[in-house]
């Protein structure tokens, strides 16, 4: 009897508090979104599973010597996982369209206003007493607007690790929702005529340009913003491995086994930050809300910047490619293409949108470096 009682006392059912039960449902929801709705499944499936594991009452997987906590310490606290993922992203990125039309870098710059506006909004809401975010927390939340998962996780791990779970979930969820979030904004801020603008075919880009570009990017970062060097350094390294053509076996492994392995453990480790007592707070609601605002403002500013550039430039750009400046590679570029085809079924914008799309990755990393430099 005594033992039966002990067994019962140790069950998850007996130890569960309502918050843990709710988080199990959140975990199942994330898994559902990943599998059925195809919401960024590579990340949301591990994160959702990690969320369930972290909230098993009595298992203590996300604290102390728990395996998820170990993954978190080894991979995220050290910064290693997001940086390795960024190296992999670099090895998967083609800067060709950007090099063929470098001024689209400015679209990637403009879309970063989503980050700063949200940062400002979070502090504003704190001033009004609605939320209670510090400058560091506000900055980490703002970076959601960069629409780059690893950048968000990297910045949150440095500036606001207590919010990392909510920030990562918001970041990947909204990246998956880009096809729903962006089109209405794109239609609202452009005229039908603008959406029909045809862009000139992109020029061919030589192998040498592609090899030199990541080195130039690295040196500019090194000279001007050292705090962005970890992120953009690993990004440029991955890209150089790919473009150089002399280390194909390293590049292949980076794009496959390595990024896959790290993605699994990154997801589980992020899940360890979804423990009920940390996640079920008003702050999380604020993060989800502000993250959505960040995506919307970023999209809008990308569009407006494209329209502004058209005032000064002879070679008109279709403003629809501006929204791709938030990154969310390659989803946002596909959305640009899709909305463009609605306006004119012969207007293929995909290639043109890839320029601002990858520019947005660089832009967000620069914004991240600024935040870390001033607040880190």
């Amino acid at each position, binding site marked *: 009897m005594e033992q039966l009682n002990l067994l019962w006392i140790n069950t998850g059912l007996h130890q569960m508090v309502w918050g843990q039960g709710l988080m199990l449902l959140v975990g199942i929801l994330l898994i559902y979104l990943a599998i059925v709705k195809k919401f960024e499944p590579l990340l949301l499936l591990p994160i959702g599973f990690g969320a369930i594991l972290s909230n098993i009452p009595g298992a203590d997987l996300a604290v102390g010597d728990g395996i998820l906590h170990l993954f978190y310490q080894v991979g995220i606290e050290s910064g290693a996982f997001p940086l390795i993922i960024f190296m992999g992203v670099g090895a998967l990125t083609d800067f060709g369209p950007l090099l063929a039309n470098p001024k689209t870098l400015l679209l*990637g710059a403009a879309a970063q206003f989503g980050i700063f506006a949200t940062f400002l909004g979070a502090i504003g809401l704190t001033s009004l007493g609605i939320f209670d975010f510090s400058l560091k927390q506000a900055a980490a939340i703002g970076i959601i607007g960069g629409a780059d998962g690893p950048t968000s996780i990297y910045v949150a791990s440095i500036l606001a690790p207590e919010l990392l779970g909510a920030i990562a979930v918001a970041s990947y969820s909204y990246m998956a929702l880009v096809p729903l979030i962006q089109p209405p904004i794109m239609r609202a801020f452009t005229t039908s005529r603008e959406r029909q603008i045809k862009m000139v075919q992109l020029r061919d880009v030589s192998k040498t340009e592609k090899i030199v570009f990541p080195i130039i990017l690295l040196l500019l970062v090194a000279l001007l913003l050292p705090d962005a060097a970890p992120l953009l350094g690993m990004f440029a390294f991955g890209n150089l491995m790919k473009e150089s053509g002399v280390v194909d076996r390293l590049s292949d492994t980076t794009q496959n086994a390595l990024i896959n392995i790290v993605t699994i453990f990154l997801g589980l480790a992020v899940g360890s930050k979804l423990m009920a007592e940390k996640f079920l707070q008003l702050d999380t609601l604020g993060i989800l809300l502000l993250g959505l605002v960040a995506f919307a403002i970023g999209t809008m500013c990308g569009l407006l910047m494209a329209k502004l550039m058209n005032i000064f430039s002879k070679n008109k750009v279709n403003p629809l490619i501006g929204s791709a400046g938030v990154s969310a590679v390659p989803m946002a570029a596909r959305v640009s293409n899709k909305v463009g085809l609605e306006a004119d079924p012969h207007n293929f914008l995909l290639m043109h949108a890839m320029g601002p799309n990858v520019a947005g990755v660089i832009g967000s990393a620069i914004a991240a470096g600024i935040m870390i430099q001033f607040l880190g």
Partner: protein
Amino acid sequence: MDSKLLVDAINLTLFGMGFVFVFLALMVVVTTLMSASVLRLQPNASLEGSGPVIDDGIDEEAEFIIREAIKMHRRN
């Protein structure tokens, strides 16, 4: 103190957004110069295929075809 927080945030926003623009504008200039030099130094540089290609999409398609072929092979 709240107003101090807000002022700090506004300052950081202005400087941050400014820096992002300056940095990426500088990249436009440097990249353009780089491309010009490369094209001058290697006028007949071997170009990669015809026009920039989104590796991802096409690779995935090819991979998919190959995988399906292997699957078919396995079934037989």
